[in-house]
């Protein structure tokens, strides 16, 4: 395992955090330089050196369209990756992902209801998506609290079932939708970062606080990986830790899903990628997933805009197209 050795935690962090931070920064800069308006590096650089109507247009595109989009992509990537990491640790299941507790299903039903009734993207659809996600997630957690007791797979199964129910609702709503509505809904279901707007970025403000909380809980999460009883025997309040972790994660994932639609695969791929590369220590993995996950989605979004000639494709298509083969490759590598 690369980089996993005796070398102390702080030395590894001092190497990994600046490196991934730099990659994130570079990918965001690259993302600022590429877009459907055909604006190149030369135009952007020229607009800085001043003057003219074109420079003003370029500056507007840069700061009001591309920057919000890059920031949203980074936030969504970071949140989904971290969400995957947390759910995989708590559920003790390497295939858990951020949508597992029904967050995706709930958000989708909410969002599609909004689009179906022709509400505006904000606040209507966004709020409904957030409400739907939180509602389903709360249902799962309450069910687990009252009935699930000691069964470790209860959360997983309850989430899967509620997601299946939500899927049926989505299909039902889709079958009633017409024309442009259908494409709108499909784009949302595949993850759509083009909804980014500077006026709405404040909605992402709670994210750093959520990230910080999870970073603090990195050591208890490590202990949790060795089993719930073993963690408890080492002084961890497993119940309390569970509610804080799942509550925080569900909240932040609902928040970004309501902004971006369902971007798949990030939460599965990124934590596994870093776990194979850096080992299972969450004090390393949490910052790695935040920075690396952000960079991954920014780059995928860049591809989603650059690949199709004229126009763009939903970023979820790219994350799955790139992610699925990469994931299979990683699995194959880890077996040998």
């Amino acid at each position, binding site marked *: 395992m690369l980089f996993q050795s005796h070398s102390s935690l702080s030395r590894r962090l001092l190497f990994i955090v600046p490196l991934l931070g730099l990659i994130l920064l570079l990918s965001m800069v690259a993302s600022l330089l590429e877009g459907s308006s055909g604006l190149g590096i030369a135009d952007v650089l020229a607009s800085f050196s001043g003057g003219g109507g074109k420079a003003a247009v370029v500056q507007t595109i840069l700061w009001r369209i591309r920057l919000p989009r890059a920031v949203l992509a980074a936030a969504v990537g970071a949140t989904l990756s971290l969400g995957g990491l947390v759910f995989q640790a708590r559920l*003790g299941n390497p295939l858990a992902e951020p949508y597992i507790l029904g967050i995706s299903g709930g958000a989708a039903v909410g969002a599609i209801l909004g689009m179906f009734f022709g509400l505006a993207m904000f606040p209507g659809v966004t709020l409904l998506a957030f409400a739907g996600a939180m509602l389903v997630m709360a249902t799962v957690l309450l069910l687990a609290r009252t009935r699930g007791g000691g069964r470790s797979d209860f959360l997983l199964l309850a989430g899967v079932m509620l997601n299946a129910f939500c899927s049926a609702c989505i299909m039902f709503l889709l079958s009633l939708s017409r024309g442009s509505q259908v494409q709108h809904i499909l784009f949302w279901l595949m993850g759509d970062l083009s909804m980014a707007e500077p006026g709405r970025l404040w909605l992402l403000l709670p994210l750093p606080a959520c990230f910080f909380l999870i970073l603090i809980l990195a050591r208890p999460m490590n202990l949790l*990986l060795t089993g719930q*009883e073993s963690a408890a025997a*080492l*002084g*961890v309040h497993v119940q309390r830790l569970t509610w804080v972790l799942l509550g925080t994660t569900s909240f932040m994932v609902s928040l970004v899903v309501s902004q971006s639609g369902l971007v798949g695969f990030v939460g599965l791929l990124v934590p596994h990628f870093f776990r194979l590369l850096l080992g299972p220590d969450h004090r390393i993995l949490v910052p790695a997933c935040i920075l690396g996950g952000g960079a991954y989605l920014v780059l995928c979004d860049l591809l989603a805009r650059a690949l199709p000639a004229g126009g763009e494709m939903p970023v979820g298509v790219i994350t799955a197209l790139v992610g699925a083969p990469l994931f299979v490759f990683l699995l194959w590598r880890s077996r040998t």
Partner: protein
Amino acid sequence: MKAVAVSGLRVRAGRREIITDLSCAAEQGDFLAVIGPNGAGKTTLLKVMAGLISPASGELRVLGRPLAAYSRRQLAATVALVTQQLNPDFPFTVEETVLMGRAPHLGLLERERRHDFDIARQAMAFTQVDHLAARRLDQLSGGERQRVMIARAICQQPRIMLLDEPTAALDPAHQLAIMQLLHRLLKAEGMTVIMVSHDLNLAAMFAGRVLLIKEGRGLAIGPPEEILTPDYLRQAYGCSMYVDRHPLGGTVRVSLVAENDHSLCKAVSTPVD
């Protein structure tokens, strides 16, 4: 002051009562072996002592203090539990695993210092796994892994160590090694060791006292030669066993007897001394 004192303990899981009425105690520096048939409540008793299960009623004191008066972290710094859990999907290295034992002594934002690394290194040396420090847990043999888990428990610097069948699934040589390790721990650190085991002979060789439980009740507690008798064993396990002395050293030795073996059955019924 007793290391652990249990009186009138009752534990329920749903409607089922796992421990119905149990009282026992271990002095500080005791090596107590808990034996009894499957489902008797041995593991449950350990988990109650480690604070993982709360009893329905009864009193439990650790070092004279009621269990409820301990915070989770305080208890983890006093009582260590060694189980056989392993999650192979998230493989930590041996050193990382042993260092986890420092968790109850560290605040949430505190990082391990040199002092903690020293304790971990000593614990690994004590259980002879220091040469495996960089290896991953899922690459070890069963005996090595068990020694790592004991090293982690030592790293917690507890006063009391609880072990759930530490020699199960180990070959005879490794069984002996683990038991000798526990014995050294007791002598060197003055630790109290409470061990659940199905191996009556290992219990007889190493434990100072034996607690025999059946169906959630304490049947008897005392030195091995008083508890490991044909009568008690038949009462607990429902089958005949032949008891004599180990030819070397003279500790009690228990042998199984096949039901249809008449020559041996006769021997069982005559008390041997």
